[in-house]
């Protein structure tokens, strides 16, 4: 108990608070700029952590992580260019809101939802770490495969009008993701003997291309003078009261985020897609989604920040990093000579509670910092496009290069940008392609590892309860999507019939 009290006072120590602010600041910049991913930002901060005491170092990195995950939505809303894959689900609705002159509302919703998600996961981290860790260990290759398949069924809800076109794009995404080395036997696939393609088509340049560059091309084509359709940005007052209608969505999404986050190797993107899909499914206004739904923004952002606290659970209790960011956090711990594991709560109780409580404080500080700056953020939507977009384009190209210091990533971004510009004109949506690129490799590796484990028997997916559950959810999801599609087409036919009847009666 005394350790908790000690750590409570520690988190307010001026050095720790200072480094939290530094981390938040760096995270906000990194998350907003397309291409400077949270991972890169965290990696760049590593040298600074060598000389710092462990609490300050970890709290700074946590600041970068939380703020970076939130800030991906800033670009998504203002420019339809998500700074991180985790905010890709926010882009459609967020940007639509910005075009309606409601950028302020969208940014606020994103902030409140993100902080809510972050705080929720912080509480899970604080009170339920050991239990959650045990559950995380139940996730082996068969479960990852089942989860990936379930995730792929999400494309139904983001395919817009045509489900089949969405499926085509998802398959295209999976195909594109096979370029590079086979994850199991490391044979080259579609590399055409180019060394640059050995590492495959990476997500960050792909994200920049498919979302940012394609959007810039679209904006150029339309010749729009500035993003916001209205001349002045609406000054909407946004407080906790405005959140209340969305509290169910936010709570559900935070839960989904925390569950997904606790599973190593998944991440904010998967959580945000699943959560967005669930919000749409249970909503009474399904058509709103994709056209500027505040609910959609809330769902996506609460989920992606909901993963941040949860990913720390397997890292601290088992020494299992969920993604590169937690891998960096883990190595920072090791450099300080601290061994992760269940005994950590005994041997370094003060440090651990400082991290757990500090995580919550980081979210609160982030809220305060961003709340003051939102007014300036939204002004971007009234900056003339002929100034704004060249700057964004340069940042995108920089960002693609910075991803792995290779010009090939820039080419990938440009090529995918052109593809992402042309295909939607024929009704082929871009988001399913991104989902395919993220989940395809996960599904493939997991599938083949599972078969290695089971001696090539498919029964393994039905014998393990968690895997079976997700497979059933996936099947249900597919049936539901097909049913909805069928219902909609019947409805459309009826409406067209009525129209014809009315016009023929009028004759």
């Amino acid at each position, binding site marked *: 108990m005394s350790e908790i009290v000690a750590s409570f006072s520690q988190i307010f120590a001026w050095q720790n608070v200072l480094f939290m602010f530094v981390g938040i600041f760096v995270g906000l910049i990194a998350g907003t700029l397309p291409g400077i991913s949270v*991972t*890169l930002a*965290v*990696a760049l901060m*590593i*040298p600074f952590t*060598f000389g710092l005491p462990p609490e300050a170092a970890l709290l700074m990195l946590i600041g970068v992580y939380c703020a970076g995950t939130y800030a991906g939505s800033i670009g998504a809303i203002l420019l339809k260019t998500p700074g991180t894959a985790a905010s890709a689900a926010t882009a459609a609705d967020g940007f639509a809101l910005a075009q309606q002159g409601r950028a302020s509302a969208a940014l606020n919703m994103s902030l409140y939802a993100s902080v809510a998600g972050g705080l929720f996961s912080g509480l899970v981290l604080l009170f339920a770490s050991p239990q959650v860790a045990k559950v995380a*260990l*139940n*996730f*082996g*290759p068969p479960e990852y495969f089942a989860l990936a398949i379930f995730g792929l069924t999400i494309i139904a809800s983001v395919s817009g009008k045509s489900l089949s076109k969405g499926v085509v794009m998802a398959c295209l995404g999976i195909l594109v993701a096979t370029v*590079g*080395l086979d*994850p*199991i*036997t*490391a044979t*080259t696939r579609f590399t055409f*003997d180019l*060394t*640059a393609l*050995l*590492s*495959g088509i990476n997500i960050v340049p792909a994200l920049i291309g498919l979302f940012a560059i394609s959007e810039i091309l679209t904006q150029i084509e339309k010749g729009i003078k500035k993003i916001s359709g209205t001349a002045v940005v609406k000054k909407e007052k946004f407080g906790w009261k405005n959140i209340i209608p969305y509290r169910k969505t936010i709570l559900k999404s935070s839960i989904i985020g925390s569950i997904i986050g606790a599973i*190593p*190797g998944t991440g904010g993107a998967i959580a945000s897609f699943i959560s967005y899909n669930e919000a749409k499914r249970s909503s009474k206004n399904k058509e709103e989604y994709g056209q500027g739904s505040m609910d959609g923004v809330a769902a996506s952002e609460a989920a992606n920040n909901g993963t941040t606290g949860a990913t720390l659970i*397997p890292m601290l209790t*088992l*020494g*299992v*990093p969920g993604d*590169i*960011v937690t*891998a*960096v956090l*883990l*190595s920072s711990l*090791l*450099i*300080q*000579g601290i*061994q*992760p*594991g*269940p*005994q950590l709560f005994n041997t370094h109780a003060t440090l651990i509670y400082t991290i757990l409580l500090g995580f919550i404080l980081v979210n609160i500080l982030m809220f305060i910092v961003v709340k003051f700056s939102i007014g300036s953020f939204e002004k971007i939507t009234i900056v003339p496009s002929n100034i704004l977009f060249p700057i964004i384009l340069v940042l995108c190209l920089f960002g693609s290069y910075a991803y*792995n*210091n*290779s010009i090939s990533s820039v080419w990938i971004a440009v090529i995918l940008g052109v593809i992402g510009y042309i295909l939607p004109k024929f009704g082929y949506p871009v988001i399913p392609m991104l989902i395919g690129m993220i989940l395809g490799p996960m599904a493939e*590796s997991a599938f083949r*590892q599972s078969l*290695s*484990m089971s*001696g090539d028997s498919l029964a393994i997916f039905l014998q393990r309860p968690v895997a079976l559950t997700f497979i059933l959810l996936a099947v249900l999801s597919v049936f539901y999507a097909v049913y909805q599609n069928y219902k909609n087409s019947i409805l459309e036919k009826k409406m067209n019939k009525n129209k014809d009847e009315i016009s023929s009666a009028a004759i």
Partner: protein
Amino acid sequence: MKIFKKIFLTFVPFILVLALTACNSSNEVSGSKESVDFPKKTIKIIVGFAPGGGTDTVARIIAKELGKHFENKVNLVVENKPGGSAVVGATEVVNSNPDGYTLGFTPSGPFVIQPHLGQTTYSYNDAVPISQVTSVDFILAVHKDAPWDDFESFVEDAKANPGKYSYGVPGANTTGDLAMKAMAMETGIEIKSVPFKGGAPTRTALLGKDVDLIAINDDDIVPYAKDGDIKLLLNLGEKTYKDYPDLRTIRDLGYNINSNAGYLLYGPKGLPTEIRDTIDRAMEKMLQEESVVEALNKIGYTIDYMNAADRTKKIEEEYNAFKEIFEKTK
């Protein structure tokens, strides 16, 4: 106030442009003795893995410390070029300008294993090894609930049940995977290889009992074996660990297998011997500093220095050893 805002806004892009140009990494060292040719400016170390992993962290420690051990103090920076089991980064270094300002830091895999798989545009001896810093062994580990207390009982069980047991490795055709394949051949057992991506997922798979054993690099397992859920069964390499004096090596048991993998600093094809030796001498000095030894120990590595000549010879030996393994296990 409006005027101030205008001035401020005009200067912001100007400052940004300045900041970008300042990011140019070729800073000349001022006050350098003109008689010393190398190094005169910032040296770049390319790492073939993503940031946060063991190789990257060691490289960053080197980058922080090596500069002061040259006659002219210089800076070093780390650039990550992940992909293709570090082959992408290795390819870039091998083809770089051999002026000594582009170096690489890698485990030996890209040079002694990957060329056998036909994935590389370079030949195994194209790169110029400079110094080995440390080495990892691959350890055979099991979950504490496993029915075997030692290697021999495992082999007995596996012989009686061919194809029943699976082992996880941090990547297909990693040193550990190949050592296991060689071991399986020599003991006559049939076990399944389940490759994961990196040390952490492999370790997780063992903790979750998704595989029966794992053959994993020591830096990704030894620091985690203290809390009791993991049992170290056998060392497939050559080192001894002071925390685990009872851990035998596979060579102790009479098998001619050694999965020791060195981590080395290396230079492009055609790197002049003078420059190579200058860097090698500086590395040797750096690795004797107590702060460096401590920093590496904290992340699970012990110093295992080898100079350029010895390390070059070892590449040749290891390449041939793996050639044999690949031919036998075809």
